[in-house]
């Protein structure tokens, strides 16, 4: 039964519905959207027994507060955004680490204070979030959002046609028959599972001072000067705070010089393309990227690289390395 479950009291930096992404849309200029971090989303689908590709609530950066209207099971994966759970019947706060499944009751509250590690978290429900679809997908592409048409808090289209606002209500169909073995585990025990899932979680890489990002050197890579290529491979980049779901902006100490004589005709852009605009500071194009672009590209970030970049906080340092130099690829998912 479709019912209202959660009231959003504060939407935070940005929270919206995302799924696997829109299919067959880019040739119309419609962004594909989809989960920024495919690895964390995969775990959310797995732990909530959902078909991979179902809608999830994506929370970027935290600052989010939810009020629970109805008893439900929630699954949180991805970044550690210092989630805290107000337990109404016990009248106390409880800290949550990601990759837990919690049973929340009416009157409880869920707060994401802000990033401790990572940047993007996913919230799934044991059941299915109910939301509007656009071209067959629930993904919200902010650039195409209709804030003008849905200015006030409402339920129809919230999260899909525009990011969430305070006062929006999340509806879901709960699966009452599902009570997994996991649910009987005490919560501290569940948190042990983080250690097991940690093999696939970004903490190992994200703790480093400089996060290594694997990429394929393709597109116009060989048109760049040998020196510029070396500079790109050795230089550290800081994630700019202007980064968003469209592109992760990387600020390097020295700007890259662009190759001469290249065509300026627009070519289609792949997910994770490293575009080098005129100012010489590369932008990694993420899920909400535009369909065509004329700037030269240094290559494309791999799936694992996109996962790391999505979880890298603003002002964290990254460096790029040629994926062919990688001895062991953790991208087994």
């Amino acid at each position, binding site marked *: 039964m479709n019912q209202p479950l959660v009231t959003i009291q504060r939407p935070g930096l940005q929270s919206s519905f995302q799924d696997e992404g829109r*299919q067959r849309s880019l040739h*119309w200029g419609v962004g594909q959207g989809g989960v920024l971090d495919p690895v964390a989303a995969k775990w959310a689908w797995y732990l909530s027994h959902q078909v991979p590709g179902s809608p999830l609530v994506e929370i970027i950066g935290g600052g989010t507060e939810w009020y629970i209207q109805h008893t439900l099971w929630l699954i949180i994966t991805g970044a550690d955004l210092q989630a805290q759970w107000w337990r109404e019947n016990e009248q106390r706060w409880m800290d949550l680490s990601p990759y837990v499944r919690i049973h929340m009751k009416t009157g409880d509250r869920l707060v994401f204070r802000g990033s401790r590690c990572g940047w993007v978290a996913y919230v799934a429900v044991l059941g299915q979030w109910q939301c509007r679809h656009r071209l067959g997908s629930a993904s919200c592409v902010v650039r195409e959002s209709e804030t003008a048409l849905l200015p006030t808090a409402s339920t129809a289209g919230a999260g899909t046609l525009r990011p969430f606002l305070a006062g929006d209500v999340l509806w879901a169909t709960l699966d009452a028959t599902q009570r997994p073995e996991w649910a009987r585990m005490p919560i501290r025990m569940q948190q042990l599972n983080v250690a097991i899932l940690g093999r696939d979680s970004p903490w190992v890489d994200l703790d480093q001072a400089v996060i290594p990002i694997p990429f394929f050197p393709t597109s116009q890579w060989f048109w760049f000067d040998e020196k510029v290529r070396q500079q790109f491979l050795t230089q550290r980049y800081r994630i700019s705070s202007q980064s968003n779901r469209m592109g992760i902006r990387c600020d390097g100490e020295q700007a890259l010089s662009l190759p001469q004589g290249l*065509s300026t*005709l627009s070519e289609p852009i792949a997910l994770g393309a490293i575009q080098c605009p005129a100012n010489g500071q590369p932008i990694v194009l993420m899920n909400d990227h535009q*369909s065509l672009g004329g700037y030269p590209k240094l290559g494309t970030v791999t799936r694992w690289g996109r996962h790391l970049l999505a979880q890298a906080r603003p002002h964290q340092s990254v460096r790029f390395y040629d994926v062919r130099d990688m001895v062991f690829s953790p991208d087994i998912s």
Partner: protein
Amino acid sequence: MNTTVIPSFKTPWWQRLNENTWLARCLPFDAQQVDQLLALHLTQFSDYLHQVEPAHRLTQIVPSTVGILLQWHPSQRLNDESMQIHWQTWRDGFDGWQDHHPWQPRHWVVPTYYQGEDLAKVAQRTDLSIDQVIQLHSQTLFQVQTIGFTPGFAFLGDLPVALHLPRRAQPRTQLPAGTVAIAEGQSAIYPQATPGGWHCIGQTDFVCFDWSRWEQGQNPCTFRVGDRVQFVPRECY
């Protein structure tokens, strides 16, 4: 990628962009000229792929003026060889398909109010009168070159040389939906309110993109590459 062969629609340069995305490049990296015939071929070829390949396998097919991008679903495991085999199969099927699906460009008439904010400035900078600008713009038969930027945004080619102007130095933070604008050698209609650096010369209520058409099984995007577009001043329409 065998760079000794000049890339063409028949012998594209293959670039594997990431795990599940390939770009078949049909123009060399330093090409400066748009090959309109190639663009039409690629659009028609993408129409064919839309019909023969299910969306859950081949998730994005993006034609452009330089090549065609194919994004597979992550569950599809491919390598360069299997991609080549697919391409050969499609090429064989496409030759027969083309005979039954001839290219039929459509002709769109766009009623336009020529009352844009930059109209006077455009006239001043091109040394024309406002009426001459309107006349030049509305007497041109435009052709859709590419679609991109925002949903349904079509780049309309072959603006008369007399109207060529560089983009605005300061892009506007918000242009209303339906703005008719020009920049460099192109004209366009803004399907939705977005920031833009083009010179707006008019306003139209022509619908370029309608999300709800998709649910009725129709194409939400009005324009297709190769379509002809004519702007008609509202007074005499």
